[in-house]
């Protein structure tokens, strides 16, 4: 047992170091002063990034984790510092992103007595964490930190919170830095792969003539992209991904159908309606994908493979399921299947690809799609693309094709506006050599734009693309389509001059207004690497995203192109948001 003279804060930093933590994103405050002090007094390699708002820290850690597959640490103070990270924790939880959040807390004997800056963050965050701890003794630190990282990164990943009272971080540490984990209730790995079940699934797959493989985020988390590709090629079966699964299968591959769902490709959605077998690997059948669950894939054999047993049958009851890690499952399945006779099916799908391509007009006012498409072409499709939430997010997903894992980072489940700017910063910290492009709307951008200071300070060469239509465009689109164009609470009048704003932070800015300037300005932005740059794109104000499956409707109700003016009024959607 290694006995040392140190305080809880120092023990904490040593334990984080032992976990291989590269970055801590955080914000100081009274109850975490001992930990901030320990960062100075404990030599090591961890780098601390001071953000401008705690929400920024959480999304940075999130972006870092999504871009690298490794967890980062968030460190904030008690009370408001802690409550400010809740959105970030919830965002990570919804999308299964590993994260360890350290919050300061009042001294132990004041907890529950309304001490200054006291909040019951352990209680408040309970529904949005994978697990959480409230420390009772400095000596619990090593075991807790080890458990937190183990829980955050294994099985279905997620955020873990450790609430640290100030007397714990300041108190003497007399424990064992190498304390063992003690989590008998945690079984993150699916038991040894049920090979009999895989064989049954292989038999079902072998009978299919119109299969579709649906690859979710689980494929990326498991690192199964290569085996998935091999499987698809062996079967000669088409693959569609979820929004978060972008990159699980190369979107430029001839077997790719792009991504599916509410604003996914028409051909992926049509394929879901017509397939005779759906092999879902690592997707949780989100309501944005299935539309009306009563009608989802009615004619098809549905197979659901997930590492989380609670996902099986939650939305859709599959005929076959397997609780497994995506990679292990695919490797085993591949042994028992061969080429399917999918010739006719692929021909049909190719026909739909020809008939219903993703498209936009380059004439007229500047289109978001045009800017995104140009970034795609001029960056060779190799950039790490980070989005905010809204119309631009859907278009970024449509027009920036993703071939590699962890290259498309977006708040899918939570749909957190304000995610884009800080997540891009976290991604650039994690992938310093890669080009990072943040596509943001003018709404979401303003929710976390203060983190431009962080990007400027570290000279991160991120391209912040503000696709500025002066509207909360997605809601405006719903109001136009389903609420007889009564726009309510969506006009962002009073937007600042974003280029001047960038200038105030010492960030290079570009204004882009005319379609004719797109190529020149995108090229200049991509070539500028002295630090961040911001491209304010004054785009068409009232453009709409298509295809669109109205929320809660069956997929067959997909609207592929913009309805003609004066056409029949659309019913209000019944699904969630």
């Amino acid at each position: 047992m290694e006995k040392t003279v140190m305080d809880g804060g120092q023990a904490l930093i040593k334990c984080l170091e032992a976990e291989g933590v590269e970055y801590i994103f955080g914000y100081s405050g009274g109850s975490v002063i001992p930990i901030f002090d320990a960062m100075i007094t404990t030599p090591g390699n961890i780098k601390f990034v001071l953000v401008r708002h705690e929400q920024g820290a959480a999304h940075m850690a999130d972006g870092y984790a999504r871009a690298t597959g490794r967890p980062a640490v968030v460190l904030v103070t008690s009370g408001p510092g802690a409550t400010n990270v809740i959105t970030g924790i919830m965002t990570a939880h919804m999308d299964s992103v590993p994260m360890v959040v350290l919050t300061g807390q009042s001294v132990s004997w004041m907890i529950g007595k309304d001490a200054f800056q006291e909040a019951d963050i352990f209680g408040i965050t309970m529904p949005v964490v994978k697990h959480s701890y409230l420390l009772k003794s400095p000596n619990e630190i090593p075991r807790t930190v080890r458990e937190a990282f183990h829980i955050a990164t294994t099985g279905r990943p997620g955020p873990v919170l450790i609430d640290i009272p100030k007397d714990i971080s300041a108190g003497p540490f007399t424990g064992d830095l190498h304390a063992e984990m003690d989590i008998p209730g945690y079984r993150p790995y699916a038991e040894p792969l049920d090979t009999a079940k895989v064989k049954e699934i292989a038999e079902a797959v072998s009978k299919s003539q119109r299969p579709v493989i649906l690859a979710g985020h689980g494929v990326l988390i498991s690192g199964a992209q290569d085996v998935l590709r091999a499987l698809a090629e062996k079967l000669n079966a088409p693959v569609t991904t979820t929004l978060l699964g972008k990159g699980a299968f190369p979107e430029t591959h001839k077997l790719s159908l792009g991504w599916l769902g509410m604003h996914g490709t028409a051909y992926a959605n049509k394929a879901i309606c017509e397939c005779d077998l759906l092999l879902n690997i690592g997707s949780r059948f989100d309501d944005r994908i299935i539309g009306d669950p009563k009608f989802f894939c009615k004619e098809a054999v549905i197979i659901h493979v997930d590492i989380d047993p609670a996902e099986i049958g939650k939305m859709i009851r599959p005929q076959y399921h397997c609780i497994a890690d995506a990679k292990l499952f695919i490797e085993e399945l591949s042994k028992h299947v061969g080429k399917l006779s999918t010739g006719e099916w692929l021909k049909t799908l190719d026909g739909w690809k020809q008939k219903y391509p993703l498209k936009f007009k380059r004439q007229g006012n500047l289109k978001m799609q045009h800017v995104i498409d140009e970034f795609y072409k001029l960056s060779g499709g190799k950039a790490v693309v980070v989005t905010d939430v809204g119309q631009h997010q859907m278009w970024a997903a449509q027009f920036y094709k993703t071939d590699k894992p962890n290259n498309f980072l977006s708040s899918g489940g939570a749909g957190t506006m304000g995610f884009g700017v800080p997540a891009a910063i976290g991604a650039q910290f994690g992938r310093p050599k890669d080009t990072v492009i943040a596509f943001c709307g003018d709404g979401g951008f303003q929710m976390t734009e203060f983190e431009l200071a962080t990007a400027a300070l570290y000279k991160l060469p991120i391209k912040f693309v503000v696709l500025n239509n002066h509207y909360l465009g997605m809601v405006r689109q719903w109001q136009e389509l389903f609420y007889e164009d009564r726009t309510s609470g969506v006009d962002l009048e009073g937007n600042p001059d974003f280029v001047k704003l960038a200038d105030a932070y010492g960030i290079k800015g570009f204004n882009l207004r005319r379609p004719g300037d797109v190529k020149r300005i995108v090229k200049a932005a991509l070539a500028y690497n002295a630090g961040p740059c911001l491209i304010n794109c004054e785009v068409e104000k009232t453009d709409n995203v298509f295809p669109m499956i109205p929320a809660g409707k069956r997929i067959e109700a997909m609207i592929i192109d913009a309805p003609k003016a004066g056409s029949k009024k659309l019913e209000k959607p019944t699904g969630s948001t």
Partner: protein
Amino acid sequence: MINAKPIHTLSVYVTNKPGVLARIAQTFSRRGYNIESLVVSPASDGNFSRMTIGVSGDADGLDQIIRQVSKLIDVLRCTDHTYDDAVVKEMGLIKISVGAEERGEALQIAEHFGCKTVDLTDESMILQAVGDPAKIDALVEMIEKFKIIELVRTGKVLLARGAETT
């Protein structure tokens, strides 16, 4: 009494840590399930506790909640014993208002149900009943002819029989 939705009896084996009850309760309440009864006690190994939870709601959704509860880090296992042949017991204390002239009849009923009289005054008595929850239901129904002043029930506890694990 006929319930539209059956009460399910779940046994949850958990590590004895702060917050575990809140996490479990939250999992049920978020999906709109009502906890009808709840007993928490230390297990034979003091590091663990056993919870016996009576919950009403439809069986389909419950399967999913059981999986979500099982997934909680502090939960070792969560099993539904509703349709098992487990040993299920409950205790009830019933304080009734009885004077000297009714006491005989009350004691007769108590004896029939194997109750103990654990408190007796000129105006009242407390009966202690242990057994099958349905038996306690029946007792309460019978004893209602007297005025029930107060009533408390522990909620079900259960153990699986023989070689079965709870």
